[in-house]
């Protein structure tokens, strides 16, 4: 696959944007502070200098306007990559996302396509409090018509972002804030990773643990600890929630007989519950223990580090859940 280097998650995303903008003049980038500032986390650094202000547009703080405009531009033939600075701000622009972008193709009888990519940041752990710490991907997965991408490594970040930009549908691309500084091997050449294909991060035989985004790393930490105690954990990262690779999860549960789903989103009506329901439906007979969910309790994310730690999932809580299902066998 040519040259492979260790780079950060931010650099991987930046490289994907650079390469896609070079390849396809219809790709434009817009959002608050994506130009001169290079994005508040640095993802769009250097794009303005390289591609100019017609293709890299610093917008006013008008999310309903400019995210809707990206949808309109996509309908009219561009491939916009638009940034919503924090997913928590979706409230000011959701109509353009879930009623417009997500439904236009269906309502219009399949006659148009909306190749827009909405990039946004998610996640707790930074004491950023109730309006800057949520993940909320379950809300977007709940709505028909949006592809939901949740990378966990620099390699996946680059490949999935390139796939997203080339895909002809509306996508929400979630970047966990705690992942930006994470390093990993990434090929220099552009490459794609198909949506809907899970990655088995670690093979195991006792318990299946499904996790996405930053929680993949907490799950791996837990799995390594549990290995020392003789418990063999299989860690699966679905990488996209929509489309969802349910075959990979079912195959694994048929082997292990136990499932723990780790999900940083609020517990109530969330991603973890949905995965649990699929497994309960499709391989109930294979289960040796009740399915466990390690999620964020459905309370606003508190500011104080003590309170935030209390509610967010982490390796320690995953270990506890895994031990419970193993004991129940």
């Amino acid at each position, binding site marked *: 696959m040519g040259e492979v280097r260790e780079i950060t998650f931010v650099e991987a995303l930046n490289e994907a944007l650079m390469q896609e903008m070079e390849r396809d003049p219809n790709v434009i980038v817009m959002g*608050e*502070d994506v*130009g*001169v*500032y*290079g994005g*508040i986390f640095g993802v769009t650094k250097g794009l*303005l200098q390289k591609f100019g*202000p017609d293709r890299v*547009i*610093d917008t*006013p*703080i*008008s*999310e*309903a*306007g400019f995210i809707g405009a990206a949808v309109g531009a996509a309908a009219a033939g561009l491939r916009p990559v638009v940034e919503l600075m924090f997913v*928590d*701000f979706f*409230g*000011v622009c959701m109509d353009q996302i879930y009623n417009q972008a997500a439904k236009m193709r269906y309502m219009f009888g399949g006659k148009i396509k909306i190749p827009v990519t909405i990039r946004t940041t998610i996640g707790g752990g*930074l*004491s*950023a*409090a*109730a*309006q*800057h710490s949520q993940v909320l991907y379950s809300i977007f997965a709940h709505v028909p018509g949006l592809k939901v991408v949740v990378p966990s490594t620099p390699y996946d970040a680059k490949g999935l972002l390139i796939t997203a930009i080339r895909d002809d549908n509306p996508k929400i691309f979630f970047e966990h804030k705690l992942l930006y500084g994470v390093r990993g091997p990434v090929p220099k050449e552009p490459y794609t990773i198909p949506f809907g294909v899970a990655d088995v991060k670690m093979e195991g035989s006792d318990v299946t643990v499904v996790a996405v985004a930053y929680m993949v790393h907490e799950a791996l930490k837990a799995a390594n600890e549990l290995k020392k105690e003789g418990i063999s954990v299989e860690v699966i990262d679905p990488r996209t929630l929509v489309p969802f690779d349910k075959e990979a999860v079912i195959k694994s549960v048929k082997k292990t007989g136990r499932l723990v789903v780790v999900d940083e989103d609020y517990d109530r009506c969330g991603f973890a519950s949905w995965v649990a329901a699929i497994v309960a439906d499709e391989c109930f007979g294979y289960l040796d223990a009740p399915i466990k969910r390690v999620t964020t*309790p*459905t*309370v*606003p994310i*508190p*500011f*104080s*580090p*003590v*309170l935030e*730690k*209390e*509610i967010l999932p982490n390796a320690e809580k995953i270990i506890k859940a895994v031990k419970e299902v193993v004991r129940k066998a």
Partner: protein
Amino acid sequence: MLPPEKLLDMYYKMVLIRAFEDKVHELFAQGKIPGFVHLYAGEEAVAVGVISNLKKGDYITSTHRGHGHCIAMGVDIKGMMAELFGRKTGTCKGKGGSMHIADFEVGMLGANGIVGAGGPLAVGAALALKYKGTDNVVVCFAGDGAQNQGAILESLNLAAIWKLPVIFVVEDNQYAISLRSLTPSKLQPRTSTARSVAERAVGFGIPSVTVDGQDVLAVYEAAKAAVERARRGEGPSLLDCKTYRYYGHFEGDPMVYRSVEEIEEWRKRDPILLFKQRLIRDGIATEELLEDIRRRAVKEVEDAVEFAERSPYPEPSEAYTDVFTDPYY
């Protein structure tokens, strides 16, 4: 001319805000305060000039840059500092942090993590005051960047058609993160084609005035006229205050979008310096008296830090309370 006690109280509030913000800047750099922190240093004349016109029963809505509004409203700085430290004794029990300090008892309806979100809340509070037949008013503080948010534009219209007692105070500190409010560049497009927000207000039928936001007495006089008008039941007004923030957008901001020279240039018209010169020139106070006031403010901030550091963290179980008025979550 205002009575000397009033003028000296305004001076005290301005130096208290400055001392508080300088200290928080230092504590953040030392890693003692977590999360996202936006400082008000440089903009003191706006909060103090406006709020010095308010009386019991009046309300304000604030922004992510809310410390100055809190202090001018009389929120206890011990509680504020403890809030920033995430302690149990904080204004909001450590659950909100810098971006979410509120104290309804003194009429402070909340800092806000969502840009522009204070607009509709101010309109609603004014609707309630009018309904109850009081002559109280509501001040909506919002930045230059926030003026491009749909919620603010809708609020201007609602306040105008319902003739509500709202004073919209624009804190034009020249930037919305990296986006300049008035001086677009080759690489960065305009954020508004109106010459000023004051000009825009005309379209809503709202009287407006542009104010030197570095001159606390100019702000005071402009706000006085607007507040009196609102108390008389004649409806909303807008003040467009030109000012400047000294620190980064948030603590930790590398500030690639502006020069040190520019900051130095604005510091020559520092609002505290200008007011001090004025008070001495008019024979209201001596240099020594003003220095005593400043020292008192610095000491109070030090006491607040000590209080915060001595305070306990909240109990982890506190994470699950206050979602509703009953214990359910």
